[in-house]
């Protein structure tokens, strides 16, 4: 497969960069995210997360059940800071 294949479209991370992370000994989607930045973009890994799981299974010789998806962080979609700031929580009232 092509080395310059895009895995994370937002941060422009390629397959060879993900494989480098695996060669370094990284074995979870979260670690690969922190090392390559794949999943750090605007979409927060919605496309690349599964591709990285797949690369881990094949390149790191892991069982599919051992490969956990990356942590999903709020907010699910980008939310303007002003919207979050205007939220009044019960604890504040």
């Amino acid at each position, binding site marked *: 497969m092509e080395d310059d294949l895009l895995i994370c*479209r*937002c*941060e*422009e991370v390629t397959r060879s960069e993900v494989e480098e992370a695996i060669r370094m000994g990284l074995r979870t989607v979260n670690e690969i995210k922190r090392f390559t930045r794949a999943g750090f*973009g*605007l*979409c927060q890994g*919605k*496309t690349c997360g599964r591709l990285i799981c797949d690369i881990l299974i094949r390149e790191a010789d892991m069982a599919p059940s051992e490969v956990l998806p990356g942590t999903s962080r709020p907010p699910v*979609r*980008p939310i303007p800071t002003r919207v979050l700031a205007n939220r009044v929580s019960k604890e504040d009232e």
Partner: protein
Amino acid sequence: MRVDVHPILGNAPTGKSIILLVDGRPIKAIEGEPIAAALLASGRRVLRHTARHGEPRGLFCALGRCTDCVMTVDGQPNVRTCVTPARDGMVIESQVGLGRWKHLPLEKEE
């Protein structure tokens, strides 16, 4: 190009004809349709250029997930054009990298 009659969805909904200003040039659009749809209909496929390698990007997932189609809309970068409805007079700019932010203070401001 537009699909006016779709084999499953039927006839395309009609709406008020509006004008969008895209990189300084006016294009026709239908009010309420996604910005990206209007751009495709006007023959435009490249919506932005990426930050790291400067590569062109267009519509990818087309349902608001992937953020590949983001453009600067009315001075606000990173707007997903595939899920943002078109309104008359919108100013749309193709985004290069992080885009240019309206009202952003300049490095040497007084």
